[in-house]
C-alpha cells in the first residue's frame, strides 16, 4: 500500500472526475427543470385566474354584493361570510380535539396495541379521500343527526377532515421539544400535568398554530365534501350575526343557517350558461388561491420565526 497510485495516474483520474461531474451538472439541470415545471404550473394557474378575473378582482362591489343572476352584479359577500363562519366551526371543532389527541399520543399513551391502533387510525385518516368525509357528513350529520346542509354540518365535516393534519403537526411540534427540557422540569418536582401544560404545550404552540393554519388553508379550498352535503344554494343574505349588541351578546342561530362558501360559489358560477360569469369564477378562484397562499405564507413565516427564537441545543 501507500505507493501513490492516484498521483501516478493523476491525468486519468482528473478526466474521470470530470466525466463524473458532468453527471452532477446534468442532474442539477434536470432537477431544476422539474422544480420549475411545478412552480410554473402554479404561476400559470394563478396568473390565468388573475387575468381572467381582473375586472372583478379590483372592484369593491364584488366583495360587498350578494350573488345575483346578473354576472355584473354578482358578488362574493355571502361566500366570504359563509367561508369565515364555516372556518370558525372548523377551528373550534378540530383544534382542541387535535391538540388533545396529539398530547395524549406523545406524552401519555403507553406503547401498546391500543395506541398502535390509534396511530394507524390517524395516519389512515390523513389519507382518506375528502369525498369520503362528504359521504360521512351526508350519512351522519345531514340525515342521522338532521343538521341539514348548515354551517354546522360543513364546519364539522371540514373539522374532521383537518383533524389528522392538526394531530400530525402538533405531534411534530411536541417531538421537537428535547427530552432534556421535560426531564429538567420533572427534576424540580413538576407533575406530568404541569410538564405538559407549562412546557410542552407552551413551547409547541407556534408549531401547532402553523399546522392549524395549514389545515385551515386546505379546508378553505375543499369543494367535494361540501358539494356532497348539498351546499349548492342561492343565498343572498347573511346568517344571523354570531355576536349582537344586546344580551346575551352571542347566539348560535347562525349554526343552522344555510350557507355558501368560496369554492362552491366559484363552482356554481362556472356552471352558469353565460360566460360572463366565468370572470367572477376566475376572480373567486384567484381569491381562494390568494387566501391559501397568504395563510401558508403566514404559517411558513411563523415557523421560521419560531425556529429563530427557540433553538434547542
Amino acid at each position, binding site marked *: 500500500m501507500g505507493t501513490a497510485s492516484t498521483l501516478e495516474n493523476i491525468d486519468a483520474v482528473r478526466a474521470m472526475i470530470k466525466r463524473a461531474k458532468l453527471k452532477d451538472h446534468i442532474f442539477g439541470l434536470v432537477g431544476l427543470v422539474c422544480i420549475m415545471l411545478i412552480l410554473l404550473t402554479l404561476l400559470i394557474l394563478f396568473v390565468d385566474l388573475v387575468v381572467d378575473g381582473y375586472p372583478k378582482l379590483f372592484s369593491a362591489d364584488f366583495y360587498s354584493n350578494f350573488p345575483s343572476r346578473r354576472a355584473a352584479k354578482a358578488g362574493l359577500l355571502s361566500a366570504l361570510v359563509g367561508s369565515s363562519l364555516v372556518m370558525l366551526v372548523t377551528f373550534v371543532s378540530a383544534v382542541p380535539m387535535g391538540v388533545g389527541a396529539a398530547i395524549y399520543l406523545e406524552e401519555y399513551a*403507553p*406503547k401498546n396495541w391500543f395506541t398502535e391502533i390509534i396511530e394507524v387510525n390517524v395516519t389512515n385518516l390523513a389519507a382518506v379521500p375528502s369525498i369520503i368525509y362528504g359521504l360521512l357528513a351526508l350519512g351522519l350529520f345531514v340525515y342521522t343527526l338532521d343538521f341539514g346542509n348548515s354551517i354546522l354540518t360543513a364546519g364539522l365535516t371540514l373539522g374532521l377532515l383537518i383533524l389528522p393534519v392538526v394531530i400530525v403537526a402538533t405531534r411534530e411540534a411536541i417531538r421537537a421539544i*428535547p427530552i*432534556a*427540557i*421535560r*426531564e*429538567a*422540569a*420533572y*427534576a*424540580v*418536582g*413538576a*407533575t406530568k400535568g*404541569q410538564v405538559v401544560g407549562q*412546557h410542552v404545550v407552551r*413551547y409547541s404552540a407556534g408549531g401547532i398554530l402553523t399546522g392549524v393554519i395549514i389545515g385551515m388553508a386546505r379546508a378553505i379550498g375543499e369543494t367535494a365534501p361540501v358539494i356532497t352535503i348539498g351546499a349548492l344554494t342561492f343565498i343572498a343574505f347573511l346568517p344571523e350575526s354570531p355576536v349582537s349588541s344586546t344580551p346575551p351578546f352571542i347566539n348560535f342561530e347562525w349554526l343552522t343557517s344555510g350557507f355558501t362558501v368560496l369554492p362552491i360559489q366559484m363552482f356554481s358560477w362556472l356552471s352558469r350558461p353565460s360566460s360572463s360569469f366565468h370572470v367572477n369564477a376566475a376572480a373567486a378562484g384567484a381569491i381562494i388561491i390568494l387566501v391559501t397562499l397568504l395563510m401558508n405564507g403566514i404559517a411558513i413565516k411563523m415557523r421560521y420565526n419560531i425556529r429563530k*427564537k*427557540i*433553538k434547542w*441545543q
Partner: protein
Amino acid sequence: MANADLTTKAEARDFNFFYSNGHHALKNINLPLYENKITALIGPSGCGKSTLLRSFNRMHDLYPGNRYEGEIVMHPDNTNILDANVDPIEVRMRISMVFQKPNPFPKSIFENVAYGLRVRGEKNKRLLADKVEEALKGAALWDEVKDRLQDLAFNLSGGQQQRLCIARALATDPEIMLFDEPTSALDPIATANIEELMNDLRGKLTMLVVTHNMQQAARVSDYTAYMYLGDLIEHDKTGDIFIKPKDKRTEDYITGRIS
C-alpha cells in the same frame, strides 16, 4: 474508610436496576452518600454511572418498564425512596439534579430559577424574588445577570446556562444535588467556573457527581466510587482511590489502561 464523624444522608442498599429492555444495568450496588460531602462516580462509558445517579431521583420512572430492586434510603427520615408508596415527585422535591447539557427552559432567566418554587405553589412575589437572587448568588451568576433577569435564558453562554441550571436546582433548598457530567459540554473556562462553584457548595450540600474526567473527580470530590460494567468496584476517600486503589480494575482505569 469507616469514619465515625460522617453522617449518611442517603444510601443505596443491594440496589439493582433493570432497563425496560431487560438490560441489568446496575448490580447489587451499595453506596452511601455522606452528608455535606461530594461523592464522585467514575468509570468507563456505559458502566452505569448515569443510571445510578438517575435512580436517586427516580428519573427512570418517566419511562415505562424500568425496574428498581433493593432500596435507596434517605436519612434522617429513613424513607426508602424507591418504595411504591413514595411519590416520585416528593423525591424530586428533596433531591435536585443538574444535567450533562445545560437545559434551561425557553423562559426568562428569572422564571427558570423560580420554576421549582412555582411548582411548589409559591406565589408570593417578594419571596420569589429573594429566593431567585439567593440561588443565583449561590450559583455565582448573580453579578452577570442581575440586570437582565427578564432576558431569555437561551441568550446566555453555555457555561452561564449551566450555572443557571445549578441555580434552578439550588433555589428549592434540596437536600441532595445530583450532577451528571455537568461540565462535559462546556469549554475549559466554563468548566473551571463550575468546579469552583462546586467547591463553594462543598460542606453545605450533599452532592453526587458523575464525571468521566478523573482529574475533575480528583479535584472536586471527597469520596469517589468506581464502577465497571454495572458493578460498584470500589468506594473510598478520593485521595485513597487515586493513590492506592485496592482493585486491579480501578487501577487499570485510573492509569488509563481502560478507557
